[in-house]
């Protein structure tokens, strides 16, 4: 009997000691989130459980009642809508990271976007209608006068993660993806200057008001949190 109680205590302890937190996170942040999660647990004793998805899908789920405490979006629009429709707690919206877009290829050598005018088979981007990185990609390409001429070669992933998959698998030999995805990979990178497109501001909102939730959002703004975010390829406001 004593053993069973001991076993139970071991299972229950973490939960008793700290809360569990459901966080909806845009997929592109998946490289950063585990480290934030660790930091969160170490400093607060709370456990964050991350659910990844495209911003749009997560938004639709939240609007239909998905029980997330916190939403880390890849854009500004969706958190804004949540705030307006009062699904999110008011005054909780803020920018937690700013995405850096890069032109990346594991196989082609290049040092400027001019490579796009030459012989590439496909350019992979996130769908510009659905994803902030796609939207930024379109802006950048339009400014560079390449958007129309590249239409025949552009393939769209549902999100920037799928765009990366297309390049990674070799089906497309170059893509516009996020720095955080490729910073530790082998390949050629061209960092797209931030003024070539409107900033890919990623905002967070509070959905369910709990101590742990507020603590998580606070972590994102804290010095320690910002350092982690920067380390993994994002800019901070």
């Amino acid at each position, binding site marked *: 009997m004593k053993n069973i109680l001991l076993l139970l205590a071991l299972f229950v302890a973490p939960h008793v000691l700290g809360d569990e937190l459901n966080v909806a996170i845009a997929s592109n942040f998946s490289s950063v989130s585990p480290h934030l999660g660790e930091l969160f647990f170490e400093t607060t004793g709370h456990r964050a459980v991350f659910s990844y998805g495209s911003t749009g899908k997560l938004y639709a789920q939240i609007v239909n009642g998905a029980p997330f405490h916190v939403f880390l979006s890849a854009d500004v629009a969706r958190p804004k809508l949540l705030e307006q429709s009062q699904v999110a707690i008011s005054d909780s919206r803020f920018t937690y990271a700013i995405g850096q877009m890069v032109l990346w290829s594991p196989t082609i050598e290049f040092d400027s976007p001019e490579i796009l005018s030459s012989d590439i*088979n496909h350019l992979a981007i996130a769908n510009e209608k659905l994803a902030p990185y796609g939207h930024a990609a379109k802006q950048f390409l339009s400014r560079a006068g390449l958007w129309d001429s590249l239409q025949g070669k552009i*393939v769209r992933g549902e999100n920037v993660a799928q765009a990366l998959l297309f390049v990674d698998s070799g*089906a497309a030999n170059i893509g516009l993806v996020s720095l955080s995805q490729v910073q530790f990979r082998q390949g050629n990178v061209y960092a797209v200057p931030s003024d070539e497109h409107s900033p890919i501001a990623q905002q967070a909102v509070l959905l369910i008001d709990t101590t742990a939730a507020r603590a998580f959002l606070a972590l994102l703004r804290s010095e320690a949190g910002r350092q982690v975010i920067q380390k993994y390829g994002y800019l901070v406001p």
Partner: protein
Amino acid sequence: MNDADIVALLVTLKLALVSTVVLLILGTPLAWWLARTQWRFKFILETLVALPLVLPPTVLGFYLLVALSPTGPVGTLTNAIGLGSLAFSFSGLVVGSVIYSMPFVVQPLQDAFRNIGTRPLEVAATLRASPLDRFYSVVLPLAKPGFITAAVLGFAHTLGEFGVVLMIGGNIPGETQVVSIAIYDHVEMLEYTRAHWLAGGLLMLSFVMLALVYRLRGFRVSS
């Protein structure tokens, strides 16, 4: 529904049609062989044919993406013979759909062929019909209901294909953007009305197709 959606619908119908035709052409000899052979390893082939029934389409799509890319096994081959890469192309989708819908075409055909048995073929042989002749004059007519089922199921199944196309399509309007992807995108962009129109249309079409199959089968009382 606007132009982009109609284009998506046309691409979808074209994909379903082409895939079904390819499947009937490839699937008929395969189903015939499976129905007749005594090879003790035929279960391996039957399992391969049935795999798409249980595999998540995204798994299929993922492996296809890897295989079709220029560095993958199929991609290297198609490049070598001058076809380029099949990824992000309508032809690539056809390849994916053929694999994805194969059990829906091969299995009804195999069952229909097996139900014919050997006797009608032996009779036809004694009546001077060569093997090919026997196939056309005896097997095909007797297996007609099976063909109808196979064609309709293959077509309807390809209409609804999503996971595979998501992986290897690249969402190119007029080429690889099919209705299921378009619906998904509409939802993502909060264009719920358009999503409803497209989804509803697809639902109706699928319903009508399947009702056709069941109605036709209902006429056969005995085999």
